[in-house]
């Protein structure tokens, strides 16, 4: 089993072409758990966290997007200037694991694993992020909504690498909230991201850990857009309550060893109402 540690994207893509089923290793925070337990014994490993193109990020103020390399870590996402451009992503990153995990874990790894509990994913969904994928055939890009196919299933083809995530910078309040058994080192039982775009007078709501992938709540979003006052940053108590009901109704949780479906559904309502109130603090 060879372990390849490329430092350029060309080398990394060539390595994937040579063994399209190679295991892609970024921060290792998901993958090494499976390797240590003997659940995965890969034929080839391509290590991507020293690929310079994947370690960096760029802000395009004209397009109002940030292209974040797939190997950028949570520790980097939660510090300015990235945290200033994408505050909800910074909040989500701060809830990931512990300092040790945040130094290693990457946004690309979050996408590659595609767990419904992935902390970065509700933010990427709410912001309508785009995922570029590279192979020796070239680069293609797809919406994060199309990329996330199911529980730990993505649209990445064999031989492809997630090179980055392109995230729109919106012009309104955004935040992330999470419920788990403690504040640190916890896999989410329910998560929510609210992102306001004042330019288009829209409110986005994405929820996690309550379905096979991240869910967008179209009814709650449409209701909020009509019920809130963007100029006054206000929402009535009734509007916040209705938003929470619609969010909970959009969830499709299951009972498992971490929490019951009923608890998760209730938690989504609580998180959605808290986030909408923070976004629109005036009654």
């Amino acid at each position, binding site marked *: *089993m060879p372990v390849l540690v490329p*430092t350029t994207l060309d080398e990394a893509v060539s390595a994937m072409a040579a063994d399209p089923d190679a295991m892609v290793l970024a921060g290792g925070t998901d993958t090494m758990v499976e390797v*240590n337990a003997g659940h995965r014994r890969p034929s080839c490993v391509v290590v991507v966290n020293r690929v310079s193109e994947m370690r960096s990020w760029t802000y395009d103020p004209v397009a109002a997007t940030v292209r974040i390399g797939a190997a950028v870590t949570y520790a980097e996402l939660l510090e300015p200037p990235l945290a200033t451009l994408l505050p909800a992503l910074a909040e989500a990153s701060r809830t990931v694991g512990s300092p040790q995990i945040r130094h290693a874990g990457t946004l690309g790894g979050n996408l590659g694993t595609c767990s419904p509990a992935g902390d970065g994913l509700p933010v990427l969904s709410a912001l309508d992020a785009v995922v570029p994928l590279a192979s020796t055939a070239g680069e293609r890009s797809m919406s994060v909504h199309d990329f996330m196919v199911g529980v730990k299933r993505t649209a990445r083809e064999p031989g492809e690498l997630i090179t980055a995530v392109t995230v729109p910078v919106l012009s309104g309040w955004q935040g992330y909230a999470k419920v788990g058994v403690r504040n640190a080192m916890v896999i989410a039982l329910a998560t929510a991201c609210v992102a306001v775009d004042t330019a288009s007078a829209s409110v986005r709501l994405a929820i996690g850990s309550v379905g096979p992938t991240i869910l967008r709540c179209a009814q709650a979003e449409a209701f909020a857009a009509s019920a809130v006052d963007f100029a006054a940053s206000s929402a009535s108590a009734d509007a916040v309550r209705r938003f929470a009901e619609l969010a909970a109704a959009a969830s499709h949780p299951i009972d498992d060893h971490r929490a019951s479906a009923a608890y998760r559904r209730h938690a989504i309502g609580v998180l959605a109402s808290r986030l909408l109130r923070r976004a629109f603090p005036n009654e």
Partner: protein
Amino acid sequence: MSDQMSDDATASARVGWNEQYALHVNDEVREVRDAWVGESLLFVLRERLGLMGTKGACEQGECGSCSVMVDGELVCSCLVMAASAVGQRILTIEGIAPIGAPSDVQRAFVDAGAVQCGFCTPGLIMAAHDLLERSVQPSEIEIREELSGNVCRCTGYGRIIEAVQRVSVNRRAGAST
């Protein structure tokens, strides 16, 4: 040696099946032979290189007992594939201070009674050193957050936090005299 290491860090690497590879651990080049290259850094440190100070418990990044520094970042060595760390600077608890001459953090843990069974201590010392390198006067909240990835089942954390605060006070007192 540091020049050699920075050269390695910018060069691509390939470690094949059962090929030997070298790791830079505590400012020494250590050969790893006859190893399955999927082994974690934790396993290689302990079982291949005989560095038993780094502890293994959960092997899934939950407990922090295996904390080491890789290229200046505090990480769980159980989640690092050892062969992927070729060319990177690895610092383990053995590299913090020579035996018999504990660091100020290690001394403070003893003085504050922050060590009971001791299993989590090496990981906590690594995390505390990392925190105190970056923050001269951490608040209690900051200490709790920075140590949140290190699980201790004996102490209840109170004396661990006190130990970190003692180092902070002593370092500032030392710097001002």
